[in-house]
């Protein structure tokens, strides 16, 4: 047992940990609307957190993606030539590079952003698909013999939008299949979809209401690599509600009707499926399948 543990530790020490932070930079988030300084504060925490991740192991890697109301962009790393940079203080060169690049990129994005008149949603699920593409590329390119563990941290203060349901689900299942952990730090409300995603991929979900201690929260809960989280006491997983909501009224239901062709969920019986236009034949409840006794097969 001990040997297994030791091998696991050794494996963890030599593996490459890739952290992709998906940062919601949508100006219609509650905390940004309260005060634009809040976004700067969140950004500082995210940079410090990203650098703390890089500090853990020499081979660790980081990527930061901004999800804004009009586009999704990489803040770090940027393809092509790196920013030429001269050390100005005692900060480690690589960390300064992260800080400079992220701030510069985000500045560009905010400058070029179209003005928005009314609040609109962040396309977080889309940004996560981009993160997955990026992770899958790095994982393909890992040298023979090396191992890479990847995770995605979503930091958002947006509300959830049900229109992204399918994309979110596809993201979670892909992450689960590739062994990518999805962590979420919600800055405003509890997000039930992302909560499901964390549950499906064994990630952590945390709701932080005070921005002041954000960095400490991040360092405590999200810094430990998923492989070592069992060694630390972390917030227990919340009970996740996996009920479906019906397509007709979007209400959570206990018992519903599911179309056998397209699996749409309805809260009451209707003769035609509104999604795939199938006409259903048998109205009323289905006959309950009789329990079969094991029968002796007639053989030759």
């Amino acid at each position, binding site marked *: 047992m001990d040997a297994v543990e030791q091998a696991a530790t050794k494996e963890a020490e030599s593996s490459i940990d890739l952290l992709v932070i998906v940062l919601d930079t949508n100006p219609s988030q509650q905390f940004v609307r309260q005060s634009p300084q809040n976004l700067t504060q969140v950004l500082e925490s995210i940079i410090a957190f990203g650098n703390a991740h890089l500090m853990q192991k020499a081979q660790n890697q980081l990527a930061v993606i901004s999800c804004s109301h009009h586009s999704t962009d990489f803040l770090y790393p940027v393809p092509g030539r790196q920013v030429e940079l001269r050390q100005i203080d005692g900060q480690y060169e690589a960390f300064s590079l992260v800080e400079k690049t992220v701030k510069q990129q985000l500045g560009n994005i905010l400058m070029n952003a179209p003005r928005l008149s009314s609040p609109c949603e962040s396309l977080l699920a889309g940004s996560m698909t981009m993160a997955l*593409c990026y992770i899958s590329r790095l994982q393909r390119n890992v040298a023979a013999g090396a191992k890479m563990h990847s995770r995605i941290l979503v930091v958002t203060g947006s509300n959830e939008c049900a229109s992204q349901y399918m994309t979110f689900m596809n993201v979670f299942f892909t992450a689960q299949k590739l062994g990518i952990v999805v962590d979420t730090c919600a800055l405003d409300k509890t997000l039930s979809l992302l909560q499901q995603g964390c549950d*499906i991929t064994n990630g952590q979900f945390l709701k932080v209401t005070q921005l002041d201690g954000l960095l400490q929260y991040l360092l405590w809960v999200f810094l430990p690599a998923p492989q070592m989280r069992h060694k630390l006491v972390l917030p227990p997983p919340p*009970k996740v509600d996996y009920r479906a909501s019906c397509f007709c009224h979007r209400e959570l239901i206990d018992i*519903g009707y599911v179309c056998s062709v397209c699996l749409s969920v309805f809260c009451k019986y209707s003769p035609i*499926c509104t999604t795939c236009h199938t006409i*259903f034949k048998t109205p009323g409840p289905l006959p309950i399948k*009789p329990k079969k006794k094991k029968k002796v*097969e007639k053989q030759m």
Partner: protein
Amino acid sequence: MADDENEDQKEYRWETGYEKTWEAIKEDDDGLLDSAIAEIIQKAKRKRQVQKAKQNRLGMMRHLFVVIDCSESMSVPDLKPTRLLCTLKLLEIFIEEFFDQNPISQLGIIALKAKRAEKITELTGTARVHLKALEGLANVTLTSEPSLQNGLDMALKTLKVVPSHASREIVVIMGSLTTCDPVDINLTIDELVKEGIRCSVISLSAEIHVCRYLTQKTLGTYGAVLDDAHFRDQLLSQVDPPPAAKTQHNSLIRMGFPHSKDEVEGKDAPLSMCMCHVDNLDEPSELCTTGHHCPQCKSKYCELPVECQSCGLTLVSAPHLARSYHHLFPVPNYEELSMESVPQLSECDGIRKCYGCQKVLSAPHDKMVFKCSHCKQFYCIDCDIFIHETLHACVGCNTIPGVAGLIYQQQQQGGKTIAAETHDMLPSTSKQQRQFSM
């Protein structure tokens, strides 16, 4: 319809594939072969995905019997180490994949041992049971001939009583070239046709007429394997749900979505036993507080999906349904273009990058790029494959607001949004369905 395509395909791979292969390889301007080889590799990668045609009606709730030949011929070592062991190994992968892709489906295994058929596992939705049964099959003694008819009869008997809205299928893995049947097998085949049960056969030795006939009649697929890799491809092609059979009755199925919300706040739920392990002697049920309760009769189950033993309600969770949606709304194929068509980024020294993975595109590896016709973004070949085979969501269509469900535009228009928003959980009209399938 799928059947017609098969009919046309008279030539075999080995009859055509290797003719003049050198013609495909051409030297580039520098007299190097690199680019030609890269192209061949690219084409091979995309092959599988291009073959996937869009289906609009699929049999999503599948009841599938895998019939495994356990006769003497399965001990032949042409597939390493033996046909049987190779089959079992691949079936393990198949079962995992099957339940991953078809979470509300059920599977059962039948073994053809010495002219008899033996049901190894009943139709059930848990992979664990099947994997355990497969382990047991590895030590089976392989003697005598199989009986295809007995196997089909046994599967037929069970599938007959399955509700008609489900897709009913049989996949036979045949090692033997002969079958030893009690009566005329055509009777069984007619019965299968009548019931609309789709039969597919994978032959490990050579093509057998009766098997080919069976698959043609029942609209299944037929394949004789070349080697283990080909066998794997053949088997995994059964993972994707087939088009809905004509005889399949479409209906609305009542389902329960268990949840654990009805507990009193701050108080632990009472200890209880789960129904799934009550009769199970190997792993007796444990008293615990967690579990899923049937919303109709409150009996408890430790894992989903399951059919409630007391009231017969199918219990699932929302993600189980969501797992299948990608079959219904696949990402449409991208357009293949040459790299030069990608616009150069002015702010980054005029490099071209893939919109998905941010890779800097460079010849010769990225000679061909792929463009989504909806969001007009360009992707590298690896992302193209990843998006279509694994992710099932186009990156551009989901990150660019104008394209993504037209939400951003709706905001601009103002007034007409409410009507659209009520439906945005899932597509409800054919127009929206197109959006979602992007």
